[in-house]
């Protein structure tokens, strides 16, 4: 057991160092791919709070990305507030929105939250288009500032480290979260609502707060995303595909675990980016098929996702070895 955990730490340390020196020897395209994987991993982990740990699927998380991105970008472009500060405001706005949707749709068990979030995402998109004066309407907002104090960097490598830090923070947060009082309460609800009530958990309130935390993190992710693409517009940021991808990445990787989002993103994001790079102009949509097929196959054949599968295999081997 001692040896086992030592080995585990050595492996983690090696991977960590490899990830850190990766931009030194890889080309820009590779760096960009891995960087995007980290970003999606973080978004999937944010989704995981309510989707995986809470067992309530959101299919409108793009709305929280958008709220976060718009909040910090408007603060930046109109008021000169640095995104290093603005991202917290972004999180709060998205979190409040998450609480609102949760409040409306988490009272009953069932698909209501999924329906509520998808409607909310549409609503956000329409509102962003509607309030042109603030949001720039369909033209969106271009980020014009520059400099690290505004979270704007010149090379992809810098963004790589930013996203890497974000991803690591996400994993650490989930590790802490799943052992916290609140995390345990939320999982208890997912496992059995009646029994959760029976130990004194306020089921409705806990789910709503879970949705708010998830949206809060996603909002921060939205800020980072906007800072990377330098440019936000309703039709590229509140895309239904984004909501779908976030959910798919987490479920494929293994929902309700700290590593599921990362595993899912490391598999799906590079695959879809490569497919896009290869077939790009010719066959748009091919990379999306990948998401669909993998999601379908994993849910039907590998409930628990890839992390769950690996873990089961590993556990059974360990047991077999004894």
């Amino acid at each position, binding site marked *: 057991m001692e040896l086992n955990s030592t080995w585990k730490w050595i492996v983690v340390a090696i991977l960590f160092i490899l990830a850190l020196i990766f931009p030194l020897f890889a080309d820009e395209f590779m760096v960009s791919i891995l960087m995007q994987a980290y970003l999606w991993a973080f978004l999937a982990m944010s989704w995981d709070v309510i989707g995986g740990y809470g067992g309530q699927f959101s299919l409108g998380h793009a709305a929280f990305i958008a709220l976060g991105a718009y909040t910090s970008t408007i603060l930046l472009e109109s008021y000169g507030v640095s995104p290093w500060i603005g991202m917290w405001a972004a999180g709060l706005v998205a979190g409040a929105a998450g609480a609102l949707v949760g409040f409306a749709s988490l009272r009953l068990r069932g698909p209501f939250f999924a329906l509520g979030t998808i409607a909310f995402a549409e609503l956000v998109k329409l509102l962003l288009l509607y309030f042109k004066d603030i949001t720039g309407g369909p033209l969106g907002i271009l980020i014009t500032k520059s400099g690290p104090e505004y979270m704007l960097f010149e090379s992809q490598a810098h963004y790589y480290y930013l996203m890497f830090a974000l991803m690591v923070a996400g994993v650490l947060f989930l590790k802490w979260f799943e052992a916290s*009082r609140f995390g345990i*309460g939320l999982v208890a609800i997912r496992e059995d609502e009646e*029994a*959760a*009530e*029976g*130990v*004194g958990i*306020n089921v409705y309130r806990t789910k709503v707060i879970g949705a708010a935390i998830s949206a809060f993190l996603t909002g921060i992710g939205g800020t980072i995303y906007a800072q990377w693409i330098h440019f936000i517009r309703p039709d590229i940021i509140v895309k239904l595909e984004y909501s779908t991808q976030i959910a798919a990445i987490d479920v494929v990787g293994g929902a309700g675990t700290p590593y599921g989002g990362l595993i899912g993103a490391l598999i799906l994001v590079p695959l879809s980016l490569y497919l896009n790079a290869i077939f790009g102009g010719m066959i748009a949509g091919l990379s999306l098929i990948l998401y669909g097929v993998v999601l379908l196959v994993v849910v039907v054949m590998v409930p628990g996702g890839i992390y769950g599968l690996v873990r089961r295999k590993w556990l059974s081997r360990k047991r077999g070895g004894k």
Partner: protein
Amino acid sequence: MLEVRDVVKRFGGLVALNRVSLTVKQNELLGLIGPNGSGKTTLFNVITGYYRPEEGRVLYRGEDITGLRPHLIVKKGIARTFQIPKPFGRLTVLENVMSAAMYGRKAASRSEAKEIAMDWLEYVRLKDKADVEAKALNIVERKLMELARALSTGPDLLLLDELVAGLNPSEMMEVVKLVRKLVDERGLTIIMVEHVMKAVMSISDRVFVLHRGAKLAEGSPQEVSRDPKVIEAYLGEPIQV
């Protein structure tokens, strides 16, 4: 301590509880028995807030708790187990029990909760399974874990729904002793629904018999087990058609 007054509960055309009244005194172990479908679990669900009765009231320490949501009833100091155990399958046994300490009557911190949970796990002799996922437990262990979980909420009144069903006779007697000790040594008040007569009769201070949603008899185990009405309810009456 607990008073159920003229409670009526209907499901569609069926009357599950028909004007049931029942009182439980502090530090008493009440056995609640009755044939299938007599309304025992329904009564539990009414007391613990899972069902709202159509008529009647539930009073706890003089306070009206009728129709309060279950998690609030836990906070008043009433805990329960379920007829079919409901573990939080993908939490560990320890986390299952800790959740009750953290969310129960007093919101314990993580470290306090761990202590409380380990104490109760030791009490039900499940300590060495603490780090196992709850879904990996067998039926007996699930029942014991659920007992520990209910106890960790810090209740004064504990409702046990068929705790020993499915246990073999020696396990059964051990669990029954544990339950009795909760009353004698820890000062709890307990209502237990049980089918296994031997278990109920051997440890109850008083027995309450439900039949077709209404009270049939009430008294000491000896009185009740000799009551011809009770014997008839269990064995049934002869039919001359």
